[in-house]
């Protein structure tokens, strides 16, 4: 069963990874998004994430359910609130029978999350405050 979490708590990569381990799976792919200091010549100091939480959770369920129906396992966590440089903002993990599906679905999930899940970042950079990217 998938595990989805959107919260202000720090992302515990190790415990999320443990949720993906299972004897039926031979490949686990995880993606971790972190707070980057430099984007071109813009320097980020910190990022605040906010969400339309019930819709975000519902949209994550709609992404995870069809992949689980194919026999894989999905774990996604997104952090909200103020994050400092190098903090983990998002964790997406897929465990599948073989690596090809695990890579494919992990990439699909993070790409779709970034388009369709109502979470926003507000960056405080050294020169300005910016919404989104």
């Amino acid at each position, binding site marked *: 069963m998938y595990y989805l979490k959107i919260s202000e708590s720090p992302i515990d990569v190790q415990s999320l990874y443990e949720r993906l381990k299972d004897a039926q799976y031979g490949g686990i792919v995880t993606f971790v998004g972190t707070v980057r200091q430099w984007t071109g010549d813009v320097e980020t100091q910190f990022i605040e994430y906010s969400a339309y939480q019930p819709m975000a959770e*519902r949209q994550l369920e709609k992404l995870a359910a069809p992949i689980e129906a194919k026999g894989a396992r999905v774990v996604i966590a997104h952090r909200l609130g103020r994050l400092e440089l190098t903090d983990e903002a998002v964790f997406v993990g897929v465990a599948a029978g073989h690596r090809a599906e695990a890579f494919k679905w992990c990439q699909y999930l993070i790409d779709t999350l*970034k388009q*369709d899940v*109502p*979470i*926003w970042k507000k960056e405080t950079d050294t020169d300005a405050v910016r919404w989104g990217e």
Partner: protein
Amino acid sequence: MGGMTMQLKVKLFAMLREQLGETVTLNLGDKATAEAVKPALIERFPAAKPILETARLAINQDFVSDEAMTLAPGDEVALIPPVSGG
């Protein structure tokens, strides 16, 4: 609704929330369809037009796929500016 005015609360997020507040109440009259929401907001907040135009409408926590969809009084309506999670 027989010409009655339907009051609709629209939830706002991110930069829209900062500029316009957490929710905006609209009176949509008898044209309470999904496609009427953004023009009504743009008319009321012309300065926010560029952001309002790029935002997507969500009804009951799903993006609207049918613009002609009629809104009911209990519907949860939200405007979703371009997202930037991850």
